[in-house]
């Protein structure tokens, strides 16, 4: 019996489940029963964090600062001054880019002061006509890649202008154009540092792990405290969120380089700096570019969230549209965000792949071709704008700056569509919704909430132990303990419940669809393209269509999570199945298995490591979406994080809540990753 137990993991697991159920049955729910709920021993932690932050911000290390207003030196806290200057620089940069496109006075004010600007009303920086910006973007696309990119970029900008989203789009763009390069630069620096220095890597690694699973919101609160509210705060939060994947991919890319490349660089006589800039980074370009792409995607995913702390632009509008249930408008704004994301991604990619021709003997006109074309576009755009000012009435010059929400709109069409769906399917949708909530969601939620804490620990740590031994069990236990000692265990259970249901559905769909599509090369390519496309959408976009159908309910959130989180499950399934060597297929066919058997007994086990990592990604995606779901109303950890946003002293709460979410993810990550690695070794895939 014991021997059998040691050999067969599923037996161990069965025993574990039985004990778990027993515990659930025995332990009585009561406030004072520690086996039911642990006492919130670290309840005070958020307060401590708040106090320390306050101290650092307002009392720590006073320095003398000259104040020109009162012409005297004043004592001010260092940190405060420091964050203030960072904010100032970033804000200036954003305003600068913004005013090139939209016009304004703030850049001028920075150099002259408000008084002067008010006296000299002529000193205004005029906006570029949208035609010129769109033309310039198209020229850039042409210069970097060719007519196809030029056409795409041009059309994207025309769409934005014509649909009356020009101003918010340019606001968003200016903010991304600052945040993205800063993130890329920071990510590269940190990545290189970790690559060169083992201690640095040891410090960065756990930070990156947590940072990647921390919900977006939890960054907002500390940023708000340190940097205030506004575009710069949004940009800083975005940078914090977008940098970790860049660091990751930089390290990954540099580590993959064969030593010969470094040696070739050194033998070419490079010094350290040249080696880094001219050899290592460009050679690791493939992964680093994936990092850049990630940064751009993260930046646009943060557009909406950053609007919560005052970033202007599309995000803010989208949030309002969603709250007012204006689906059509939300959709149009969503398309703008996606377009900006794709445009930036393609342009940066083309830029990185650009090649110079040293041999062509170019005339002046050829060498300055693009500047000249831009000059022409510039003049034509301005002429058009002037003509427009005679044709259109004041403030509605469509050839200069199409006013916000005064363009074409398809909103009525979409609204009609929504109405039609509601009219036609009202009862179907409603009854499905009700059935799903009453029969599925509520029971699962109740079941989660009625788990005694001791049973939860047993189940999680036991699974960890069976999969990876004592080490994993302790890790998992540690993560859970932290959550259990806060006062938010029940909320965490709700988060976990939403996530579990979503992950189950996503994984099932992902594996089934992925397997079906992997059967044929054409469908394989198709599904991979679909995955790519879906991954360029910021997570928010997924909320729009489901709200259209189900209104503001747990069902909507769940469906949005499922759509979002199915993508990695699908991708990893396809890639896993593709990685099964051809010879194994043949061996299987020769031993006379049918298709289903082959899938069950050969392909699935062989691709298990991939699948496990896919599920892992699904968990991460689902968690981040669960939290975003809070924006349209759930009652889990996400909702609390959102609340602490509006609380000046919410830093501690927000941070601890964020850590709770991250730790749920990390606990699952531990188990799945260990499992995947073990299977990999057992299958000899390493």
């Amino acid at each position: 019996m014991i021997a059998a137990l040691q050999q067969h993991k599923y037996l161990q697991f069965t025993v574990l489940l039985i004990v778990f159920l027993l515990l659930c049955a025995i332990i009585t729910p009561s406030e004072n029963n520690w086996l039911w709920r642990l006492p919130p021993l670290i309840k005070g932690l958020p307060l401590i964090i708040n106090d320390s932050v306050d101290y650092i911000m307002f009392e720590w290390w006073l320095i003398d600062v000259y104040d020109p207003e009162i012409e005297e030196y004043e004592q001010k806290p260092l940190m405060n001054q420091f964050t203030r200057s960072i904010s100032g620089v970033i804000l200036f940069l954003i305003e600068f880019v913004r005013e090139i496109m939209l016009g304004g006075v703030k850049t001028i004010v920075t150099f002259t002061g408000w008084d002067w600007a008010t006296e000299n009303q002529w000193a205004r920086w005029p906006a570029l006509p949208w035609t010129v910006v769109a033309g310039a973007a198209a020229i850039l696309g042409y210069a970097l890649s060719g007519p196809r990119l030029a056409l795409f970029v041009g059309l994207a900008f025309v769409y934005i202008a014509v649909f009356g989203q020009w101003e918010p789009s340019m606001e968003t763009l200016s903010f991304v154009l600052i945040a993205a390069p800063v993130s890329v630069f920071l990510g590269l620096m940190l990545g290189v540092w970790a690559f060169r220095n083992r201690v640095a890597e040891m410090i960065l690694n756990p930070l990156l792990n947590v940072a990647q699973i921390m919900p977006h919101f939890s960054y907002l609160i500390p940023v708000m405290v340190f940097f205030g509210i506004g575009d710069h705060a949004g940009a800083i939060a975005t940078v914090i969120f977008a940098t970790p994947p860049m660091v990751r991919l930089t390290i990954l890319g540099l580590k993959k380089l064969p030593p010969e490349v470094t040696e070739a660089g050194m033998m070419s006589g490079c010094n350290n700096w040249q080696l880094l800039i001219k050899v290592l980074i460009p050679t690791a370009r493939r992964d680093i570019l994936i990092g850049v792409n990630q940064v751009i995607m993260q930046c646009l995913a943060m557009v909406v969230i950053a609007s919560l702390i005052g970033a202007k632009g599309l995000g803010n509008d989208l949030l309002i549209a969603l709250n007012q249930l204006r689906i059509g408008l939300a959709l149009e704004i969503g398309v703008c965000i996606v377009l900006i994301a794709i445009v930036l991604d393609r342009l940066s990619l083309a830029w990185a792949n650009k090649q110079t021709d040293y041999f062509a003997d170019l005339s002046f006109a050829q060498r300055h071709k693009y500047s000249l074309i831009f000059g022409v576009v510039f003049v034509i755009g301005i002429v058009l704008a002037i003509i427009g000012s005679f044709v259109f009435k004041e403030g509605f010059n469509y050839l200069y700056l199409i006013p916000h929400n005064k363009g074409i709109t398809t909103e009525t069409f979409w609204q009609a569509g929504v109405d039609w769906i509601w009219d036609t399917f009202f009862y179907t949708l409603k009854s499905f919704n009700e059935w799903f909530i009453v029969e599925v969601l509520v029971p699962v939620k109740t079941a989660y909430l009625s788990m005694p804490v001791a049973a939860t620990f047993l189940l999680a740590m036991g699974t960890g132990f069976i999969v990876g031994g004592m080490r994993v069990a302790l890790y998992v236990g540690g993560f859970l303990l932290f959550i259990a000692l806060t006062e938010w265990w029940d909320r965490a259970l709700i988060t976990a419940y939403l996530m579990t249901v979503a992950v189950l559905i996503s994984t099932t769909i992902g594996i089934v669809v992925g397997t079906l599509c992997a059967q044929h090369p054409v469908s394989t390519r198709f599904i991979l393209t679909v995955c790519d496309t879906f991954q360029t959408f910021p997570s928010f976009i997924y909320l729009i269509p489901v709200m259209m159908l189900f209104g503001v309910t747990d069902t909507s959130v769940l469906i949005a999570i499922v759509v979002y989180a199915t993508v990695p499950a699908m991708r990893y399934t396809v890639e896993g199945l593709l990685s099964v060597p051809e010879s194994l297929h043949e061996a299987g066919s020769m031993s006379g298995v049918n298709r289903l058997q082959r899938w069950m007994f050969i392909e699935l086990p062989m691709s298990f490591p991939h699948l496990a990592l896919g599920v892992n990604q699904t968990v991460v995606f689902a968690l981040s979406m669960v939290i975003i779901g809070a924006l349209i109303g759930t009652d889990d950890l996400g909702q609390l994080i959102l609340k602490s946003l509006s609380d000046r002293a919410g830093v501690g709460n927000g941070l601890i809540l964020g850590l709770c979410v991250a730790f749920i993810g990390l606990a699952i990550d531990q188990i799945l990753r260990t499992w995947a690695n073990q299977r990999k070794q057992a299958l000899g895939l390493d």
Partner: protein
Amino acid sequence: MSSNAVTATEPLIRCDSVYKIFGDNAKSMLENSGGVVDASKFQLAGCIVGVNNASFEVHAGELLIIMGLSGSGKSTLLRCISRLTDATAGNIYIEGEDILSMSNKQLIELRRSKMGMVFQNFALLPHKTVVENIAFPLQVKGISTQDSIQRAKEMVDLVSLTGRENYFPRQLSGGQQQRVGIARSLAIEPDIWFLDEPFSALDPLIRKEMQDEFLRLQGVLSKTILFVTHDFEEALRLADRIAIMKDGVIEQLDTPANIVLNPATEYVRKFTEEVPREKVLKIESVMDPYNADEDVSELKVSKDAIIETVAEAVLNAGKPVPVVDEENNIVGLLHASRVVNVLFGSHADHSAELTP
């Protein structure tokens, strides 16, 4: 191939008891061992012996080939001399200067002016075109874009890649990529040329072609060369001298003929056992003293010719063939029977016969 360049002057490269041992406590272990390194003992302590007590000299214009099985420390030795890795102990002099005591700056200067290296897997920069790759060492030195590209174009012509200047490495075949690697290593006109198994990653046919190309280049440029290979045939085709390594130790360093004829150790004997003699031996080593009485053929052969290259002609001549030196003076006679013996006789026989 100018062994006559070996003179009594200061050698270009001199290695003095060079050790390279990988591992955390390599240095202290080496100090305690007093210079006598037993690879297996070190391995037990977690150290891997790369190079073990290497001492030798290379003179200007010489082509030294470093041979040995995979893992015998060839690359490591090369990397010690180019200081891509720091030797654990010993001294390495280049033109009399101790490179181990050089500062980073001096080292970079040395590489920028005197060294070039070709790698087994080409190690081209994937984001740069053919000319950009070749111009890279020049640009790193600070030479203007225009001049460096100009010079790179000359190098492109030199390695016969004209017309492919703007290709990326991924658009080239292996042989072409290695041509770029060669051109890059030569761009700064180095005095010392390191080649680490430059042709091992290529198909046999291409390899032959590249060896010919290499010989042609060496004929034009006459550099001092350290060439690593594990292919004996290649070594025989190219070398002035050959160093044979085993487990980090240089077992023997000598001319190809001497290594084949007088293997210093059992390992070297085994290593050279299968080597066809006619590919190694020069006419000199099998000729008889000149005898004016004999009726000789019209054909004359150089004493430095490899037997294989002239065997057919000598056998067809029907009469003994006079052997001449560089000044065309007759220094000996070659009898067909000797050649037949080398070609078909058992190895043991004639090594007994030829060994003085």
